[in-house]
């Protein structure tokens, strides 16, 4: 099958269908609405389940129930909608059933706006719901990559009985790009051995997140943790551009990483030896490779569309080995490549240590830019 010009949200939805998604439960919210809209048309065509719930809280609990049957199920929403789902997400994690959740992130906190953002990094990567659990978080940076990683998300969810968040932002949901969809995967004929299916001819099974006895809960926590350590060992993914001989590294994910790739290529034209490191699994975070990079380069620039959330994960790994600087735009503002190019030039000519906190130095530069815009 050849490449077609595909709109982000619609392509993501079709990718989920082709990966074997048999149930979609959601509630519309910009900028992810086309995902649900597409599902509302396609899922009934295929005889699969689609429900537009009365709220996000209802939708995630439908995902929870449907996940217990062992079928591939999902929801898609945007930031405030994901916040509403957090209780259910924690229950799904506690019950150890697989689910794929797509977050097309927008500006916040609060009602915020509908513009593209990466401000949900902490919420997605650090859990977001209550209790001891570890979601897998995938952050693709193009329509094609999102198609590929939504397929992978279902595989990982099944393999580890885990929640897999796929995080993109409004840019990726709304843009059109040439991409190729995979063939339709056949649906499995049998259910996994933990799934509930009516208990005909076998002893009943129970799926729940309740462990009244703390010792039982602790055993569950330990099981989740050991599974997470397996995931950390096996499932790290990232992409790199021009890193082989790089003296400076730009680190960014999703749209920010993609915009940074333009800046990195432009900087190379100017003779600056800079490369791009783009984590695709935000969790598990690619710590090992980042440690190697910290031994290779003189300085690191983290670029995000938030206030420096992945920055904290980067500095925790780099541990002061090289200076780590930051450039971010917030509130639904997407940086332009020329802004990041300017930052690369500055970083490449700056040998001074970062004074105190990388965020404080960035805030001073950002306030000048924002002042110029007002």
């Amino acid at each position, binding site marked *: 099958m050849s*490449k*077609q*010009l595909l709109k982000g949200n619609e392509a993501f939805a079709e990718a989920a269908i082709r990966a074997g998604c048999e149930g979609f439960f959601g509630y519309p919210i*910009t*900028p992810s609405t086309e995902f649900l809209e597409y599902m509302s048309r396609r899922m009934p065509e295929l005889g699969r389940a689609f429900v537009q719930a009365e709220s996000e809280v209802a939708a995630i609990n439908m995902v929870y129930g449907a996940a217990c049957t062992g079928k591939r199920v999902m929801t898609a929403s945007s930031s405030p909608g994901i916040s509403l789902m957090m209780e259910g997400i924690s229950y799904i994690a506690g019950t150890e059933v697989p689910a794929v959740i797509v977050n097309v992130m927008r500006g916040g906190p609060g009602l915020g*706006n*509908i*513009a593209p953002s990466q401000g949900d990094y902490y919420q997605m990567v650090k859990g977001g719901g209550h209790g001891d659990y570890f979601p897998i978080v995938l952050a693709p940076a193009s329509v094609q990559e999102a198609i590929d990683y939504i397929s992978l998300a279902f595989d990982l969810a099944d393999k580890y009985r885990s929640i897999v968040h796929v995080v993109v932002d*409004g*840019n990726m949901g*709304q*843009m*059109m*790009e*040439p991409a190729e969809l995979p063939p339709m995967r056949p649906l499995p004929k049998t259910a996994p051995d933990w799934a509930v299916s009516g208990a005909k001819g076998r002893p009943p099974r129970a799926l729940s997140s309740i462990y009244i006895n703390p010792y039982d809960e602790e055993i569950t926590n330990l099981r989740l943790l050991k599974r997470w350590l397996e995931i950390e060992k096996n499932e790290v993914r990232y992409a790199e551009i021009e890193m082989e001989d790089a003296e400076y590294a730009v680190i960014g994910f999703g749209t920010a990483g*993609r*915009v*940074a*790739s*333009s*800046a*990195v*290529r432009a900087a190379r034209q100017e003779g600056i030896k800079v490369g791009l490191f783009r984590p695709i699994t935000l969790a598990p975070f690619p710590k090992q490779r980042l440690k190697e990079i910290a031994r290779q380069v003189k300085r690191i620039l983290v670029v995000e569309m938030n206030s420096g959330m992945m920055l904290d994960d980067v500095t925790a790994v780099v541990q002061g080995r090289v200076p780590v600087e930051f450039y971010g735009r917030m509130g*639904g503002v*997407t940086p*332009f*490549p*020329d*802004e990041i190019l300017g930052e690369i030039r500055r970083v490449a000519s700056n040998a001074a240590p970062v004074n105190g906190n990388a965020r404080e130095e960035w805030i001073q530069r950002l306030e000048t830019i924002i002042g110029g815009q007002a």
Partner: protein
Amino acid sequence: MQETSIIISGFGGQGTLFAGQVLAYAALENNLEVTWIPSYGPEMRGGTAHCTVIISSEPIGSPLVRRPDVAIVMNLPSLDKYEPLVQSHGVLVANASLINRGLERDDLKHIYIPANEIAEEIGMSRLANMVMVGGMLYLKPILSLKAVQASLERHIPDRHRKTLPMNFEAMERGYAFTQEALVQTAS
């Protein structure tokens, strides 16, 4: 081919988003890399709409640019916004039907096309966008007129298929208008 960034901007209903999609389809069908991204925010709800199309032979990083190589401006607010931003020696295609001022810059390759009047002559006022695309293709021949027409033929929604000859004519008229205007200026 070098990366070319195009912003198409106008009122909602002027077909700016579709004009961009036609270019995007043509780029894909001529083996180029392309991104198309619309404005979808509150500004769109306020009545203006624009899209950014980037076409390149190399993989495309940012789908957004601050300073486009080409701006197609369908109305005065769009000219006010994008005239200062177009790259030095870039291309500006302005809709003379709705813009009553000249350019402040003298470093742009530009054309004022009475796109609404031409579209009305063809018999379909909604085709001003295709007139403008035709003019742009003369000034910035990143794709041939024929290639864009072929892609339009493949992707025009069925309910509009009967307007295809008028769409073709609109592009051709925009192209020819620009060609003639520039030949006259040169002589």
